[in-house]
């Protein structure tokens, strides 16, 4: 009886110890998303799991509210603070409303970064943008140029004339134009991110510029409408539609041949990079401050600007070889 008791106690104690050790060693990194059940974020979680596997001593807590509300995310943050997680990597529903809750998290020693959709600087240590305006502008022109070895006329189909994002990207495109010989941007038209207007504008482009070789649409609505217009006009193979789009919406047009390739961020890489950065902040190996260079495993390094923001990489290019696979994700 005495021996049995001893053995039992020993077993219990050692189990507790082992459990404790495992507990203490594994870093808990929370990947907080805008809402659960969104393909884009599920893919980011895939990337986070990949990073955790690579690192070995990381547990990923993939969580988020049911609806895309700031209040819901604050409840999630509070419960993560209570669990004493080591890091929170968040894609924010509200740039400002999360600041008090995240500040409190940081006061309690939790490393906080934002990714995809940022938090105001005082509420996080750094923000990871999927890409940068310069990289996006360059990629748009590059994708058009890659299929035009001899150069040619290219038109831009944008969103609204007042759309800040699109205007910045178009400026960046014009900046890099000298690097691509023979590529000539003939005009920019605006489809207002409406399918019917974008479609009509694309038709207009084909009529006005008979030598048109490519349409760049840096908007997910415009690119689909332009591809459809090209297909309907029987210009598939003669005019290539490219730009920024979603794989699920563009898979059909890639298959049809009206779009050879297009780009958008890769959520898997984003989740992976956010996890890697969080881990390095938790271990104290790196510090997030303006000008710092943080490593992101297989994604290389990210350099932080004055606001402690950094761009992960070039937008990820989707073509016939991979679009089907990603179409299932987002």
């Amino acid at each position, binding site marked *: 009886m005495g021996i049995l008791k001893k053995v039992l106690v020993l077993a219990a104690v050692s189990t507790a110890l082992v459990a404790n050790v495992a507990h203490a060693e594994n870093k808990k990194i929370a990947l907080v998303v805008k809402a659960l059940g969104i393909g884009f974020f599920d893919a980011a979680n895939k990337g986070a799991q990949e990073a955790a596997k690579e690192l070995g001593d990381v547990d990923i807590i993939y*969580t988020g509210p*049911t609806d895309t*509300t700031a209040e819901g995310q604050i409840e999630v943050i509070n419960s*993560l603070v*209570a669990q004493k997680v080591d890091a929170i990597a968040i894609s924010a529903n*509200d740039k*400002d409303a999360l600041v008090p809750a995240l500040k409190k998290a940081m006061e309690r020693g939790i490393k906080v970064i934002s990714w995809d959709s940022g938090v*105001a600087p005082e509420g996080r240590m750094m923000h990871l943008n999927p890409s940068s305006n310069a990289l996006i502008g360059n990629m748009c022109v590059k994708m058009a140029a890659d299929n035009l070895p001899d150069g040619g006329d290219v038109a831009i189909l944008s969103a609204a004339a007042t759309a800040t994002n699109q205007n910045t990207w178009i400026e960046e495109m014009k900046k890099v134009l000298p690097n691509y010989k023979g590529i000539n941007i003939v005009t920019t038209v605006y489809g207002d991110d409406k399918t019917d207007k974008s479609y009509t504008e694309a038709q207009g482009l084909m009529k006005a510029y008979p030598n048109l070789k490519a349409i760049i649409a840096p908007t997910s609505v415009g690119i689909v409408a332009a591809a459809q217009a090209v297909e309907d006009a029987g210009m598939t193979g003669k005019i290539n539609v490219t730009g920024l789009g979603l794989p699920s919406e563009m898979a059909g047009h890639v298959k049809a041949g009206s779009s050879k390739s297009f780009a958008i961020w890769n959520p898997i890489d984003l989740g992976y990079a956010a996890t890697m950065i969080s881990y390095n902040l938790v271990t104290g190996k790196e510090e997030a401050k303006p000008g710092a260079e943080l490593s992101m495993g297989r994604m290389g390094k990210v350099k932080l600007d004055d606001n402690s923001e950094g761009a992960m990489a070039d937008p990820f290019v989707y073509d016939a070889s991979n679009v089907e696979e990603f179409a299932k994700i987002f």
Partner: protein
Amino acid sequence: MMPVEKSSEPRFVRDRLQGRSERIVKSWESLLLLVAVVIFLVNVWSSPYFLDPWNLSDATFNFTEKGLIAFALALVIISGEIDLSVASILALASTLMGLAMTHGAGVPELVLIGLGTGLVCGAINGLLVSRLGLPSIVVTIGTMSLFRGISYIILGDKAFTGYPADFAWFGQGYVFWVFSVELVLFVLVAVFFAVLLHMTSFGRMIYAIGNNPVAAQFSGVRVERVKFILFLLSGLMSGLAAVCLTSRLGSTRPSIATGWELEAVTMAVLGGINILGGSGRIGGVVLAALIMGMVTFGFGLLNVPGIVMSIFVGLLLILVIAIPKVLNRLAPAKKRG
């Protein structure tokens, strides 16, 4: 069992059919208390982080603001009406506070504007319901869109930020140790509404109206006036919740508190407020607030996805409502004087 004895008593005085102790044991509040204790114990058992004063303090923010709204809403529901515009009043109050802040308003002005907006919105609902005699569900569905719509017109996709540092006290401050300003407010408001509903003639009028507005009218109750005051109170509490939530978030967006009207209604109904009017107690609403807060926090600690929480709260609601009915059906014969 003893039909002769029973028939000698007036049938409608149901209270007398049970002894005092039996009534307490079988009351809705006791059932809720039991549920709350069970949830509390399950939480303690399932997460080592639950029983920590600061963690519990943080968790109270899950229900304090919604609770403030639910108390006033409970009175409105007992009177046989409903106010679905509460979350939109909150949004509009917060937006106008933000607008005033950009024009240099200080903390006292901000609070006054928040509460004042609530009162004005409540008055609009109250006038439409009591003076024009429109159904409150239609009126408040309309003002729900109207009030939040104004917020969207003012703010668009922008946000008001940069509230004065002192303003953070309401949503982020503590009165004593782990007891936050919001929690203390929650308790004070609960006491206020409990006294108003259960200890004043005004409270009895609310029940009377909820049970039979025509009879109440003929008994000398000024039904329209009481209803108007209830909508005023509902607006005022939404304004108070706006002050708290805006202070806690430190910013305003027109999407603030989206969907809270249903959460407040859920809280009231789970708390035993009869959705058809006429019965319910504030104590039940307090317990329901605690239960919903603990469930949200406890599941959060276990990283259970939010949708499971919604399912759980839904099931809880149906269960708590169904249990007394089922019990009544199972044991109808046991009732006697």
